[in-house]
């Protein structure tokens, strides 16, 4: 096992595990392509954003802000803030990233999305793999996500020209229900539920903050509450153990 650079089996497994999320991302990518071309981006500009930026929500925000004639530095800053959540994702991958050569972490970072992270986070929690195994699994999931995003952008650009009202169909609902399917089964302890409920309440109080800063605020608050509840439970359990 140790001499092997890449685990093909885990690569395939990663690609397979992300399939439901790929299906959910298809309408999202198509709507992005349709929106981008309807706002006057050339085909190559719309495609280029998917190829080089590869961040669904950022791309949506960018084209939405372009439509409202926002200044380009404002768009760039907004994109940066919205993507700070990826920094949280990357930080949570740090313990396993230690075992992966530095150069190989570059594609890992470039292909880090909500979807890829959601799938690998399950795998990471189960602690099934060594560094190489995890990397193979990650790249399998992330690569197919990337290729699918390019294909869907292209379809969106092409079909959007012929069906201009497609952007109002609400196809983005697919991503929302997919995230529900990911999060709910991961709520296994009281601390997890406390975290989720805090996140939900906070975002309802802060959704109108500028540049999606409410999203970051809510995430941080939810993590803090989750940790507090977890610690409290651990303390109670210890005290009970001492009494018994």
């Amino acid at each position, binding site marked *: 096992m140790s001499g092997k650079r890449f685990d093909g089996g885990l690569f395939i497994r990663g690609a397979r595990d992300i399939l*439901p999320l790929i299906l*959910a991302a298809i309408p999202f990518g198509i709507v992005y392509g349709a929106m981008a071309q309807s706002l006057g*981006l050339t085909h190559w*500009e719309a495609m*280029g954003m998917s190829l*080089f*930026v590869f*961040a669904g929500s950022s791309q949506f925000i960018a084209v939405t802000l372009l439509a409202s004639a926002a200044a*380009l530095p404002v*768009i*760039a*800053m907004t*994109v*940066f803030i919205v*993507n700070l*959540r*990826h*920094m*949280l*994702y*990357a*930080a*949570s*991958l*740090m*313990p396993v*990233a*230690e075992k992966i050569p*530095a150069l190989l*972490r570059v594609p890992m*970072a*470039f292909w*880090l999305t*909500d979807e890829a992270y*959601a799938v690998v986070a399950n795998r990471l929690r189960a602690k099934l793999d060594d560094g190489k195994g995890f990397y193979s699994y990650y790249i399998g999931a992330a690569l197919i996500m990337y290729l699918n995003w390019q294909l869907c952008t292209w379809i969106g650009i092409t079909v959007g020209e012929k069906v201009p009202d497609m952007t109002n*169909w*609400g196809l983005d*609902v*697919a991503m*929302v*229900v997919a*995230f*529900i*399917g990911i*999060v709910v089964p*991961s*709520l296994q302890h009281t601390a*997890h539920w406390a*975290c*989720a409920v805090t*996140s*939900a309440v906070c975002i309802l109080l802060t*959704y*109108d903050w500028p540049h999606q800063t*409410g*999203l970051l605020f809510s995430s941080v608050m*939810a*993590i803090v509450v*989750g*940790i507090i509840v977890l610690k409290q439970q651990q303390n109670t359990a210890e005290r009970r153990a001492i009494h018994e």
Partner: protein
Amino acid sequence: MNDYWWLIVAMTALTFIPRYLPLALAGKIHIPPLLVQALEFVPIAVLTAIIVQASLVRDGAILVSTENHYLIASVLAFVTALLSRHLMLTIVVGLVTFSVCRLQLF
């Protein structure tokens, strides 16, 4: 190069840096155990906020109404996920619910 391409270059850098920085630092800095525990809450914390915002906030305001098809789809998807713990089934129930509401089949 026109403005849009410059925007794409800027966005590429600004999306890559936050994704890469922690990965680049992995192994070089010590992560306290409390932070490791905190980071395990990241998917729940972030994804829940995205879900709730997308389901309840329509056109810049909270909309709790049967006219909010996103909310109806999300609630049924939530119940499905709770009972079945099955990702694909959750997605299908959510999408079918949304389509039925949208097309006003009932």
